[in-house]
């Protein structure tokens, strides 16, 4: 008999306080558990439990949260790692990990079960059970004799498995059956019985939430869940006194003995970096030093300044102390691969902006230019891993991912998970459905609720929407929605966070399938990885990097000196480039191209690199909601004296004129002004990142305000800071990221200014990316005097080209722009093109392209050099006789031409040609843009528009004069930060006009405001002193009828 050790007396001596819950599911058992791992461990500790096992269903996703909470709160409770499994209707069990081997075994079993199934599901095989050697097996008998006897016999044969029977006392009327069954199995098969609850909630008050989750899981309403639902709240953490009354002493004794055997702790997990990165004969430290020294020669060819040298030494010492060499070497290896392949990349994050990273070529940000000190972010005290994200060209990131998989193998590499949690809409909808509200009503309410309304909270808005909060069901809806917010719903794939390990990853953490084929994710998200000190490498995609690399390629073909990012940054701040930026001529560049950024540029007037760092960070919802923009602008232009409440604060805020703009500054303020320790500041940082999800930030409110007032700061200043922190949360930008982005922003501006044709060509070739459509980019290029040629069968390549004609650089659009023409077919056209180009349409027909592709080329007017109008050409292409066998085979073009020469064969004629408007329509339909005419310019021919002011003439109008403008509505934005104002962008053939529509104006002329695609606005032109031109809308007139069928895409806010 497998008898648990220990004697009766020992048990008595320890009771009543000793109990360990060995079967407990958190809300990571999605739609089953109703409490977080943190709530479970905290409550269990409060109740005096000796240990608690977090045993989510085929998952260890919640264990790190529990582990983290125990460490942070310094709880005196032991955490046992385990997992609950359902094999089939006849068998369910819990596996617990007594030691590290058992943990690896558990991870392997979960991985196998998960990898066999679709995302989110699992399937155990009997083989999995046979391989259990180290885990403790708690069998939860089904209560059906035939099943239980069969499994008991089977389990008895598995000598390696330590089997315990788990007895649950749930006061549900069936306890006597369960207990009888356990006694029978114990006696018959000599298996020890342990007591367990099968906890699903930390407190009995969570029962309604558990019911809602249950109803959601089985797709029913609360009213209909019936007897399948829990009848009471006994599956919560119960007091030890109560437990003692519920179970026989012996079973409790067995339970504690089993718990005491489980000594595995997550801190034992020793993450090992892949060792192959360090060549033999080197230690990680010495090899890192070699790599850095190599980089020093490249980065500082004129010699290393002594102060930089000192910083490098300091950083290397810190890296060694924290044993982060492998991390830096891993990223170094990846970026070296990217470099070899000519893939442009850029590192960002606090650690990325260190001198070591600059030397390792992970980043191009010269550390001398910004004030981000590396050591501040690799803090020994906080034991926080360094943060480096690397952006790669979006079109080539897959090459990097494949390299990582190839180099380390799929067993050792996986992507971090992202836990998708209930947000307001999903929570409200699921709770509402469970409570029996109709879906249409819920949809209506969700659409109508304005969550951005700072005055009326959403709960109060419900009564206006027909839901009376005093009604019991509505009050349940409100309370349960609040409870459900932040509860995990499922695991998803992180955008690019890779975890790479020395051995098989599934021994460290379970791996499961992601929704994307051939991708696997681990069960932990980035916070968990961080909490356990595992390091992840973020491999992200950035469109602008593709565009910049392509621009460099075009430039470097022309000049002997290589132009690259370091080349441009070394030239220092260029006055002309900044002039361009100040005029907001930034369509297509990185980050500062959006409408909001563009309207801020003339006001902030960036004149140097660091100004761009601020510009990028300041036009974000965080600083805007925290009301930081205006004070910064006033101080920057010298209209307000900058004062600091203390020297400490001055040190933190001096570089941003006393206004906290970066996330780091807020954290530092908490440390220097409110006396937060490093660890607390770290918690604050995490709370800021997730406050929308869990609202934990409010836990810091009192401490922050008290800390500051205790240190003699004004309470207004303290309250203000907390509001700013809230504003930052989720939206704030770290300075280190902003610094990296600013480099790309500056480089793209520099390229746009000095090499516009190369820049637009590369930008269009990198599309989709950025804020603007190809049509808008081409319009902008034309406004900069660049000649743009439409796709042509003889002149275009597959991609867009820069061509030089009479010494003038011009842009030749590529065949790829033709809608309906595949890239492969475009390549065939280019490869098979005779040297002198195609001379007849029939030559192109012989390329065996599909007929619809030929027709697409015809409609794009790509045949205009060799054929008649596009209608005729398309009609010709549609003729099925043209592709009869006569023209198949390898006959050379000359022969073909002689047989089917246009002059000799009766040519089918349509007899009509497209008008100018039809040509324009065809341009848009076949390529999405027109290089010939703008729709507005056609209207000008048709109508008398002499009273209309155009975009390029507005600057000449008197400030506050009345104007009439006309344009296609290309943008409608109603930012939540702009309190009811909608910004319209009107595009005419000379440029874009920004129109401000106040809420009252929009409401009074709602039909026109919402419906017009071509809009005339009579309003007042406003020139700000910084040079921004707006038209404040008065009368809106819908001119859509003028366009008839010309469709111009409009980004609506619906």
């Amino acid at each position, binding site marked *: 008999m497998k008898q648990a050790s220990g004697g009766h007396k020992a048990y008595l001596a320890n009771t009543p306080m000793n109990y360990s819950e060995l079967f407990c599911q958190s809300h990571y058992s999605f739609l089953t558990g109703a409490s977080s791992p943190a709530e479970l461990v905290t409550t269990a500790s409060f109740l005096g439990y000796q240990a608690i096992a977090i045993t989510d269903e085929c998952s260890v996703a919640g264990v790190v949260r529990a582990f983290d909470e125990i460490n942070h709160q310094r709880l005196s409770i032991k955490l046992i790692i385990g997992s609950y499994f359902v094999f089939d209707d006849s068998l369910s069990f819990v596996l617990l990990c007594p030691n590290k081997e058992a943990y690896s075994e558990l991870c392997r079993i979960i991985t196998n079960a998960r990898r066999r199934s679709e995302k989110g599901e699992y399937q155990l095989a009997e083989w999995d059970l046979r391989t259990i050697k180290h885990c403790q097996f708690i069998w939860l008998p089904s209560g059906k004799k035939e099943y239980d006897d069969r499994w008991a016999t089977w389990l008895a044969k598995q000598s390696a498995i330590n089997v315990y029977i788990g007895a649950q006392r749930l006061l549900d009327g069936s306890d006597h059956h369960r207990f009888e069954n356990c006694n029978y199995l114990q006696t018959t098969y000599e298996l020890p019985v342990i007591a367990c609850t099968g906890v699903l909630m930390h407190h009995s008050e969570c029962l309604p939430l558990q019911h809602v989750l249950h109803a959601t899981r089985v797709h029913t309403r609360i009213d209909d869940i019936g007897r399948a639902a829990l009848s009471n709240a006994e599956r919560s953490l119960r007091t030890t006194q109560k437990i003692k009354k519920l179970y026989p002493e012996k079973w409790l004794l067995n339970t504690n003995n089993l718990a005491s055997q489980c000594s595995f702790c997550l801190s034992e997990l020793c993450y090992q970096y892949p060792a192959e990165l360090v060549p033999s004969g080197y230690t990680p430290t010495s090899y890192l030093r070699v790599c850095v020294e190599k980089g020093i020669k490249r980065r500082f060819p004129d010699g290393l300044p002594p102060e930089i040298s000192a910083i490098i030494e300091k950083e290397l010492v810190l890296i060694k102390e924290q044993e982060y060499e492998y991390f830096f070497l891993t990223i170094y290896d990846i970026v070296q691969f990217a470099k070899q392949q000519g893939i442009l990349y850029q590192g960002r994050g606090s650690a990325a902006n260190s001198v070591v990273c600059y030397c390792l070529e992970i980043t191009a940000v010269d550390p001398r230019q910004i004030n981000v000190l590396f050591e501040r972010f690799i803090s020994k005290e906080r034991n926080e891993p360094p943060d480096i994200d690397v952006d790669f060209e979006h079109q080539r990131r897959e090459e990097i991912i494949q390299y990582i998989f190839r180099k380390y193998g799929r067993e050792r590499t996986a992507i971090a998970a992202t836990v998708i949690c209930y947000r307001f809409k999903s929570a409200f909808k699921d709770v509402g459905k469970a409570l029996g509200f109709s879906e249409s009503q819920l949809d209506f309410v969700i659409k109508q609720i304005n969550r951005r309304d700072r005055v009326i909270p959403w709960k109060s808005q419900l009564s206006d929407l027909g839901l009376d909060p005093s009604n019991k069901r509505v009050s349940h809806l409100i309370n349960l929605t609040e409870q459900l917010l932040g509860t995990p719903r499922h695991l998803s794939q992180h955008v690019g966070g890779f975890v790479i390990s020395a051995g098989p990853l599934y021994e460290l953490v379970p791996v499961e399938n992601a929704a994307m084929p051939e991708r696997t994710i681990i069960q932990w998200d980035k916070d968990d990885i961080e909490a356990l000190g595992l390091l992840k490498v973020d491999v992200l995609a950035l469109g602008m990097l593709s565009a910049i690399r392509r621009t460099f390629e075009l430039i470097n073909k022309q000049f002997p000196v290589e132009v690259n990012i370091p080349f441009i940054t070394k030239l220092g701040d260029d006055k002309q480039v900044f002039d361009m930026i100040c005029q907001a001529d930034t369509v297509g560049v990185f980050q500062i191209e959006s409408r909001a950024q563009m309207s801020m540029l003339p006001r902030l007037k960036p004149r140097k690199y660091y100004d761009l760092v601020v510009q990028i960070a300041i036009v974000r919802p965080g600083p805007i909601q925290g009301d930081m923009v205006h004070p910064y602008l006033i101080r920057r232009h010298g209209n307000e004296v900058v004062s600091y409440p203390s020297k400490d604060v001055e040190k933190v805020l001096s570089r941003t004129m006393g206004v906290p703009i970066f996330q780091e500054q807020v954290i530092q303020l908490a440390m220097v002004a409110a006396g937060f320790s490093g660890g607390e500041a770290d918690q604050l940082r995490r709370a800021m990142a997730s406050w929308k999800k869990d609202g934990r930030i409010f836990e810091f409110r009192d401490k922050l305000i008290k800390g500051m007032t205790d240190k003699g700061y004004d309470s207004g200043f303290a309250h203000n800071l907390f509001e700013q922190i809230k504003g930052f949360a989720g939206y704030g930008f770290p300075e280190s990221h902003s610094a990296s982005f600013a480099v790309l922003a500056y480089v793209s501006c520099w390229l746009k200014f000095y090499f516009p044709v190369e820049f637009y060509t590369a930008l269009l070739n990198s599309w989709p990316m950025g804020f603007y459509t190809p049509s808008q980019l081409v319009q902008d290029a034309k406004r900069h005097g660049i000649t743009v040629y439409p796709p042509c069968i003889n002149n275009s390549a597959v991609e867009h080209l820069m061509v030089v004609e009479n010494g003038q650089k011009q842009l030749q659009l590529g065949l790829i722009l033709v809608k309906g023409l595949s890239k492969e077919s475009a390549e065939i056209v280019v490869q098979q093109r005779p040297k002198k180009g195609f001379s007849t349409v029939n030559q192109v027909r012989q390329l065996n392209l599909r007929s619809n592709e030929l027709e697409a080329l015809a409609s794009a007017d790509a045949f205009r050099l060799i054929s008649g109008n596009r209608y005729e050409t398309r009609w010709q292409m549609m003729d099925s006789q043209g592709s009869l066998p006569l023209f198949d085979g390898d006959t050379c073009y000359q022969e073909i031409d002689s047989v089917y020469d246009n002059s000799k064969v009766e040519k089918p004629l349509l007899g009509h040609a497209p008008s100018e408007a039809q040509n324009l329509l065809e341009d848009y339909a076949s390529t999405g843009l027109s290089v010939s005419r703008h729709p507005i310019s056609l209207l000008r021919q048709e109508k008398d528009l002499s009273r209309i002011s155009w975009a390029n003439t507005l600057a000449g109008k008197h400030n506050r004069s009345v104007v009439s403008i006309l344009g296609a509505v290309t943008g409608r934005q109603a930012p939540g930060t702009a309190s009811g104002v909608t910004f319209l962008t009107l595009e005419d053939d000379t440029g874009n006009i920004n129109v401000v529509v106040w809420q009252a104006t929009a409401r009074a002329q709602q*039909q026109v405001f919402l419906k017009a695609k071509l809009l005339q606005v009579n309003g007042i032109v406003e020139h700000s002193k910084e040079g921004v031109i707006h038209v404040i809308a008065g009368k809106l007139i819908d001119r859509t009828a003028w366009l008839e069928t010309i469709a111009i895409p409009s980004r609506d806010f619906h």
Partner: protein
Amino acid sequence: MLWAYLYFYQITLDTHQESGLSPVDSAHLEIPSSPVIVYCEKTNHIVQRNHAALQQGIEIGHGLAQAAALCPHVCIIPFNVDNEHLTLTQLAHRLYPLASDIVLDTHNTLAVRLDNLVHYYGGHKALWSTLTHELSQSNVHYHFATAWSIEAAKVLALKGIDRYYDNHDDIRQSLSHCPLSLTALNKKTKEALTRVGIHRVHQLLAMPVHELGRRFDNNTITYLTALRGEVFPRVKLFRPAEHFEHFALLPFDVENTQHLIPFMEKLLEYLAHYLRARNLQTSTLSFHIAFRDQPSNHLEIKSALPQSTSDSWLSLLKLRIENLVLPEPAVSLTLRCDNFEAIDDNNGDFFSNRFNDVAQKQLIGRLNAKLGEKCTFKPSISNTHQFEYMSNGPRLTKETVFSSDIVPTFLFEAPKPLTQSTQVCFGPVRLHSEWWHDAPHKRDYFIAQTRQGVRMLIFKDEASKWWAQGLFS
């Protein structure tokens, strides 16, 4: 040949507004005359809208968000193709006695062959006015046109020509100006033609057939010949169904069951009309009450004796309606009847001999109708933990495992204070109340035995008071 094509472009809206009620009833029920739209969820388009909605700027093809932004209080009717088809079939039933060759084309269009009817009616004018007069009884809006083929008439009707042509020149003239988008050519063909500048029907008809044949498939060519009226149509003609089914979209969401009666009465009148015309009667009819989210409610009404008049059914219906509880507001009604008996003098004799049987059925029928099915239920147990709801909750399905041993044979309607001494022989079983029904409370249940040997289900509440819930047999 001459075909009329009728395009009922707002058939759902018409059914909605054509409640069939007298103005007095409408006023009594406060039927709104506000903006109404018909919304197709699948395409997120407004497909029909009334005049009031048009005035608010709502147009066909708008999305719901745009419509709601233009008019926040607009009344929305979900588009349902089956309902439209049902209404169209009703219209075809109306027309069938007047014209035999009817083709149901789509869910809201039908074609009627006219050339073979003209001489019966004594001319085009008389024929057309007879048909339109019949349609006017239904209060539906439609566009129409006549032409030499269904296809040609369809193009003209979709354009909203609303003209009766009986000579070919007029038809040709009118057809030539129609845009290609109105034809039944497939989307791909239409696009191909548009992309070579062919936008109007006359441009297409002017193209030599052999040129088109080199570029388009046979279906296109077949359609073109049909458009020209050069082929005899192969169509499936409408035949009236052998059962009665009538659909009515309610003009507003009906919460009060009494408000359903006028609409049901209207449907019964249609049924009576149907029965009278066929000399039939029936003893069973069923109403389907449809809701927005809930599955539709099936209301079957039986009469011990076959009935043929609306009044006799109405009295039973009223009894039944009294106890009807709607799970949510009703949106439409369908009356269906498919068991008929011929009215025959012999039937009367047959029934008179079975008076007792009839009387019993009649009684149960009336009791059912009057008191509701709840009162005539056999004893059964519900799918709930809570004893208070065990007799009147949702029925326990076979799949539900019924594990507890403590359900007594007889449950008290409400718990009674425990007044006699008992001895606990089983328990505790803890039950938390269903929080969505009551204020939350929890109870510990026990099976106890009195000195007299009576076994009872008792419980202790949170205030430690003891109560009796039921008795075991």
